[in-house]
């Protein structure tokens, strides 16, 4: 952690103005910005490890038969890839990193409502993460169940499922506490004049996300404890020969895990809603519809979980209801896309790194969303369920959508907190490589699924070979872009040119305070007199 004085930076910022530095001043800090950066480093480590595992998986799938590893290793690695990416990167990533760094400043608060609870959340995250890491190297070795932990396989397997799900359980508590903290903060700590109608759309999206974290995560906790009880005590809850039901596990699991994909994507939508107006110099189109659709997605998204189970043997009536509700959720997402695109109309658009990532978010998220329609329809779902199509769709939504939004936010907001910024050219090159590599990696999966290749497949028939090879080559281009992006970003943040208080010309409150901000965020308490995208009245036309 770099807490040394930069000669060109303001001498008083949260990096040094408390006079506290060293490791303990960070890991025991209750400053939301320091906690946000702790989250940044921790989730990025999980992300990069999971990326490396993903690359190994793609190399294994480069050709039929054994390439670099056996099936036991492959199955463990795809499980660990999923667990790290989902439970340790993308779910805690947005609230933990950008929710912490940006949200309190955007509402004009000096910190979150419960700063010490916030620190506890990070510690729970780290405890859970270390428990998961421990599970890989102890007992029967890394779990080989897939991140979904489906019973009865997860109860039978000799691998270290119990410890891994306890780790996920602990991380879940971190998520619940963050949700409670953020809802309270947004309700209670808004600055004078920060009416609900003036909340930045990122704050709206974090607000909707926080409610899902509070309401849905406890269900996951209970489900995972039941798996542990099943394994250790033999309770028989999911065992049909003893009156249990394996399908009940799937219901419980998806009651959390479907809303969880909205924890992953809603903040990304909020970020895009911040970036489009700033880089098009125009107020966001349809503020109320975008804010409302976040809440609608959070609400309706909690009622669609069984669309993961159309082939499982649930009743036809259940298929009818859940297919219908799934299509209902598609509508608010479509409304958002139309409003974002309309924001560009008659604007003055500059294509800097955050905007490039945000524009590609629209395209990749659209492919993700539209392929979701193919899965929402009952008849077509039957053919593509549990195939590579689902893997492609999911990566388009979560990597192309949430991931690209995360990268966009890294380029947009991190310089604010480091006071220094990256070089534009390598950022654009890395974006180009990532966009091309991404489509090469994941589009072939959509076609492979249509052709019938199941997912979680260590080996495959020769007819699937050419598309798998293209996908593997794509993953190398994607990884190269990612490496350039990370190196450029962090070199710039630590050693780059200074970043002024408002170089992008944003009208939200975080741009009214110095870069990096002081510990209390604002030199004097802000009073809000205009909306979040009213550039004229903010004096940044």
């Amino acid at each position: 952690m770099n807490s040394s004085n930069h000669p060109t930076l303001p001498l008083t910022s949260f990096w040094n103005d408390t006079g506290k530095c060293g490791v303990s001043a960070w890991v025991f800090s209750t400053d939301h910005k320091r906690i946000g950066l702790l989250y940044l480093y921790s989730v990025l480590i999980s992300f990069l490890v999971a990326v490396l595992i993903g690359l190994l998986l793609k190399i294994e799938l480069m050709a039929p038969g054994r390439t670099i590893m056996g099936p036991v290793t492959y199955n463990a690695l795809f499980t660990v890839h999923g667990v790290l990416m989902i439970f340790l990167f993308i779910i805690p990533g947005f609230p933990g990193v950008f929710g912490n760094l940006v949200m309190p400043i955007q509402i004009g608060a000096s910190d979150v409502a419960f700063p010490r609870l916030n620190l506890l959340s990070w510690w729970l995250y780290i405890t859970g993460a270390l428990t998961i890491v421990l599970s890989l190297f102890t007992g029967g070795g890394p779990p080989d169940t897939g991140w979904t932990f489906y019973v009865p396989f997860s109860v039978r397997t000799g691998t270290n499922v119990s410890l891994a799900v306890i780790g996920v359980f602990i991380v879940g508590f971190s998520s619940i506490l963050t949700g409670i903290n953020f809802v309270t903060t947004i309700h209670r700590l808004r600055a004078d004049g920060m009416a609900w109608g003036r909340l930045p759309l990122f704050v709206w999206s974090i607000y909707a996300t926080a409610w899902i974290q509070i309401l849905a995560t406890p269900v996951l906790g209970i489900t995972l404890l039941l798996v542990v009880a099943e394994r250790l005590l033999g309770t028989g809850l999911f065992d049909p020969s003893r009156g249990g039901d394996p399908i009940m596990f799937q219901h419980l699991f998806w009651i959390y895990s479907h809303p969880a994909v909205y924890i992953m994507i809603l903040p990304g939508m909020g970020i895009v809603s911040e970036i489009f107006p700033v880089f098009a110099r125009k107020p966001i189109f349809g503020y109320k519809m975008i804010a409302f659709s976040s809440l609608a997605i959070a609400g309706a998204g909690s009622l669609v979980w069984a669309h993961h189970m159309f082939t499982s043997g649930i009743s036809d009536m259940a298929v009818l209801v859940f297919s219908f509700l799934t299509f209902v959720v598609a509508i608010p997402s479509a409304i958002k896309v139309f409003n974002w695109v309309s924001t560009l109309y008659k604007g003055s658009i500059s294509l800097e790194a955050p905007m490039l990532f945000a524009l590609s978010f629209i395209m990749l998220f659209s492919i993700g969303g539209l392929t979701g329609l193919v899965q929402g329809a009952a008849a077509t779902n039957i053919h593509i369920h549990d195939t590579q199509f689902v893997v492609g769709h999911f990566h388009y939504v979560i990597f192309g959508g949430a991931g690209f939004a995360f990268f966009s936010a890294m380029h947009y907001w991190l310089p604010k907190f480091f006071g220094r910024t990256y070089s534009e050219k390598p950022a654009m090159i890395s974006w180009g490589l990532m966009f091309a590599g991404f489509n090469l990696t994941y589009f072939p999966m959509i076609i492979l699924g249509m052709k019938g290749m199941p997912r979680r497949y260590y080996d495959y028939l020769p007819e699937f070979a050419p598309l798998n090879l293209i996908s593997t080559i794509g993953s190398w281009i994607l990884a190269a872009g990612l490496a350039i992006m990370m190196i450029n970003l962090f070199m710039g943040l630590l050693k780059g040119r200074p970043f002024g208080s408002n170089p992008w010309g944003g009208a939200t409150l975080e741009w009214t305070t110095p870069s990096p901000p002081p510990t209390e965020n604002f030199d004097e308490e802000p009073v809000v007199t205009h909306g979040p995208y009213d550039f004229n009245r903010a004096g940044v036309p």
Partner: protein
Amino acid sequence: MDPIIQTTNQAVDPVFKFIIGICILLFIVISTVMLVFTFRYHRSRSPKPTSVADGNIWLEILWTFIPTLLVMAMFYYGWAGYLALRNVPGNALEVTATARMWSWSFSYPNAKTSRKMYVPAGRPILVNLVSQDVIHGFYIPAFRVKRDVVPGMKNHVWFIAPQKGSYDLFCSVYCGTEHSKMLATVEAVSEQEFNDWLNQVESHHEKISGRKLLETLGCLGCHSLDGTAGVGPTFKGLWGSKQIVLTNGKERSVIVDEEYVRRSILDPKADIVKGYQPIMPVNSDLRENEIEELVEFIQEIGGHSK
């Protein structure tokens, strides 16, 4: 309900065309508009924004209403196709597919069993799905049908093979180490050929050889006959050899003999050979003479020779 029996492909493929067609159209419209705006209103061509419009209620109504119509149409067609997949035609031939880690077995009304799924082309087939261990998935991409095989649950699926030929059958639900090897073939043959095959009864007196049993039971998915490393120990050179096994978590050494092989077949978790996972399923449905055959065969091919 529907007097004209359609194939499962005919129930699903038009829905695919409808939805994917609309999706491609929507994607082209959204990306084109976005790219045109980005180009036309790029700062080099549009140095200042020429509008401060921040919403339009009629546009919002329009782009709420049209997608709602589109997705409701998709929902309806999807549901109609799904119903066809669920309504089993009355004259369907019943076959039971039994899944286990990691093999399929198919049994017919006359108790004949087979590793390949023979079906008469053009005739509806009703498949009852039985799992002996974890959840598997019965998936024939060529016929667009899939149904999970859940232990303790009565699931079924039906299809028609429109033409004679061989079709792939996959396991679609991840089920452990050899999930991707859990394949079977659907052989669609003429009605005549099918009936000949079905009635060609293997004599009960004729002993089923040990090798055949290993194949049909799926043992060879994990245990090789030629010394190749697999998920389980190879049978080659096994008989009479000394093995280190874990019994109730304690290491001990055993000489592979009839007693040991029998125990390993009937109660696989009793002794786990060191370095292997305790994942072998229990074989409680074997008959005594089949166990004898298996032991004999393992002894035969596994003669410990140095």
